[in-house]
């Protein structure tokens, strides 16, 4: 048994829904297959909060202009040049209209209220966050007549010579075990929740990784596509990782397990040794490097250590800091060697030079004579209680993806465009984001390429 749609969208996040809506508005019949249950629909989108779009003037929700050129320069900087310029500039240009288009799909913006992130000029925030955004997209899609199925895991894709024929399902959907469609939009994310796959590159260390999104981001569609001749893009060994609280759940702890307190203290490994300059750079760079740094430490664990003077300098945290009246007591609670931790802190304190502390700039508070140094924001840790957050690598997303062109059409090995297969979102993010990250860019990629993919998929189906 099989049934036939103009456009089949696999995935259920921002990119998938933008594609589904865009295809439906283009006159196509559309089925969305989301592998997760309804509550967990949308993959990483449910944990997002904002989107980075170019705009030439301040708006109600954005404090000032953010030109295409400035966006491009930011992208160039965070990726270190690992981007496809034609595709990236195309995306940036299209992002300008997305600000309005996404509102027409029911998504609401809120003014950046400050406090949380200083992105008021460059990024637009979803009122109520990513899940609210998703809810709005689903309501619009359903109102337009897009069919949506949850727990609809795809077992296999029938592809011949770069031409999608059908998707075979793990369990029947609407009484069917096979869905045929004229066009395919793959928007099913990366493989960050697939520990076995991560182990191919990271070895046993991957067992200690925490996954910030749902357990459903397993990359099975990505793997099928690459196995069936789609050209890959992005470094398969790399993933975006930040340091998150070690007490966070294995999956789906989301945004609230993050720590941004590194700059206010020191970070030690399980041997109570410092291993990197905690004051190297300001947010967001320092935020994004610590996942990888912790992943390289024994047992993939580290501890941010600070004292009571700085507790209110950063956002309140989900898990309270672990406290000790003495360094030795704190070490005991962290199961670290007390003598080693005392020595590390004593040496660090002795190396701190006088300066004027200002966490908003690269200030002149630094150490001298220790390795590694702390080059900014170095202050003595000496006012009890002594406090610590245990941290582990928190994996956000992976970079490996399918190569696409400006139509979001997948390219096959050898460079030939697929006849009817399109990709959008994290599954093709590596085209523009070869490495690094800047806040809100994943959503830009999702909405821009989702909209394009849906439009092109519908166009193909109508012809």
């Amino acid at each position: 048994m099989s049934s036939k749609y103009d456009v089949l969208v696999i995935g259920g996040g921002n990119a998938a829904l933008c594609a589904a809506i865009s295809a439906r508005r283009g006159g196509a019949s559309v089925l969305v297959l989301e592998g997760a249950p309804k509550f967990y629909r949308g993959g990483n989108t449910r944990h997002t909060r904002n989107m980075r779009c170019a705009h030439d003037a301040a708006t109600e929700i954005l404090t000032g202009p953010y030109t295409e050129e400035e966006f491009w320069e930011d992208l160039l900087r965070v990726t270190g040049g690992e981007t496809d310029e034609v595709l990236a500039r195309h995306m940036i240009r299209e992002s300008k209209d997305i600000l309005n288009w996404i509102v027409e799909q029911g998504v609401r913006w809120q003014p950046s209220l400050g406090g949380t992130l200083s992105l008021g000029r460059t990024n637009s925030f979803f009122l109520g966050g990513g899940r609210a955004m998703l809810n709005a997209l689903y309501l619009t899609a359903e109102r337009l007549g897009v069919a949506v199925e949850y727990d609809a895991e795809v077992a296999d894709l029938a592809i011949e010579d770069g031409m999608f024929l059908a998707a075979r399902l793990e369990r029947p959907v609407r009484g069917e075990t096979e869905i045929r469609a004229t066009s395919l939009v793959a928007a099913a994310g990366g493989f960050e929740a697939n520990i076995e796959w991560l182990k191919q590159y990271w070895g046993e260390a991957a067992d200690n990784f925490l996954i910030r999104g749902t357990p459903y981001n397993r990359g099975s569609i990505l793997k099928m596509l690459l196995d069936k001749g789609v050209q890959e893009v992005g470094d398969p060994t790399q993933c975006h990782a930040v340091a998150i609280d070690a007490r966070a759940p294995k999956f789906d702890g989301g945004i609230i397990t993050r720590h941004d307190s590194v700059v206010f203290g020191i970070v030690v490994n399980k041997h109570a040794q410092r291993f990197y300059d905690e004051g190297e750079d300001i947010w967001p760079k320092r935020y994004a490097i610590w996942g990888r740094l912790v992943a390289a430490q024994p047992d993939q664990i580290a501890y941010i250590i600070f004292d009571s003077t700085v507790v209110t300098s950063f956002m309140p945290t989900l898990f309270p800091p672990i406290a000790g009246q003495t360094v030795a007591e704190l070490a005991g609670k962290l199961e670290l060697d007390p003598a080693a931790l005392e020595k590390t802190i004593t040496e660090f304190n002795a190396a701190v030079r006088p300066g004027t502390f200002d966490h908003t700039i690269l200030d002149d508070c630094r150490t001298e004579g220790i390795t590694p140094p702390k080059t900014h924001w170095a202050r003595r840790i000496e006012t009890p209680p002594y406090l610590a957050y245990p941290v582990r690598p928190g994996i956000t997303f992976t970079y490996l993806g399918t190569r696409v062109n400006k139509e979001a059409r997948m390219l096959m090995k050898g460079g030939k465009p697929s006849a009817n297969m399109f990709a959008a979102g994290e599954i093709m993010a590596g085209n523009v984001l070869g490495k690094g990250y800047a806040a809100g860019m994943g959503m830009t990629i999702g909405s821009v390429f989702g909209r394009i993919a849906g439009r092109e998929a519908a166009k193909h189906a109508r012809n």
Partner: protein
Amino acid sequence: MHGTRILDEADRLMTVCNSCRYCEGLCAVFPAMEMRRAFSDGDLNYLANLCHSCGACYVDCQFSPPHEFDVNVPKTLAVARAESYAAYAWPQALSGAFARNGLVISIIAALSMAAFILGFAALNDRSVLFGVHTGPGAFYKLMPHNAMAVLFSAAFLYAILALVMSMRAFWRDIGAPIGNRADSGSIFQAIRDAGELRYLHGGGVGCYNEDDKPTDRRKLYHHLTFYGFILCFAATSVATLYHYLLAREAPYPWWDLPVVLGTLGGIGLIIGPIGLFTAKMRRDPALLDESRYGMDVGFIAMLFLTGVTGMLLLILRETAAMGPLLALHLGAVFALFITMPYGKFVHGIYRFAALVRYAQERRSEGGT
């Protein structure tokens, strides 16, 4: 740790929410939360009463059930809110009335209406009770105006006293950190916010009810109920002024101000409570404090009863049914008055106080 299990849970949730803050644009609760890093009992009761239970934060939350973080702010704050009514009730000896509130309200209402019926029957001749009375002073053939005025003024003043004392206890408890003095600007802001139900709006799209499609129905029905109540109150006040200042006695003709106000208000008090009751029955139980159905429905029923008996009295006031209907209506109104400090009515008082506090906090934060 807090005094109660529900405040412990509210504290846990506010700690989760304060490390997320995605909902800060939805209503007043989350910005108020962000002004704090730790939460006292008073803080949590303040946040609980600031919440209008629109449900948006539940639907928008990536950590709501079945997620293991189990974040259900509307339900938790609804329970905390209801418990706060008992905690601040005056006198404290009567706080138990909140425990089985639906039963308490029903019994008082029944007793009150029975007392008026029996009182009318005992004090009036059958021919008077079931007689047809028209013209000015018709109602007072059944119950002298002064007796009515004294009885209802006493009930009303008691209700005011109890409400003021309760609100005072609440206000003091939520005073930190900016103190107990309220400025007129904040009060005016709170009157506007309460008057338009600014935060019963799901961040702009409406409330969440039986599913994930928001609507503005509850806001509409609440407006009908609230403004219906205000109009009825205004009708009574105007009638009192007529009586004492102009020496004009009820009943008044249909076009006269008290009757016009009362008729419009009565319609609101019939449609509004029916709408609110229907919405409550259909609402997703995940969002509700189900153990307080009795309290919520008890208050809705009292308002409805007041509206219906008043309208029937207006329609049938020139028939033999006037006597019994007047007794029922007065019984309903009397019960409404004396139960006001011990039922769902207090939500308006505490929420208003919380809105004043919030307006103050916004002002002091903004440095104005």
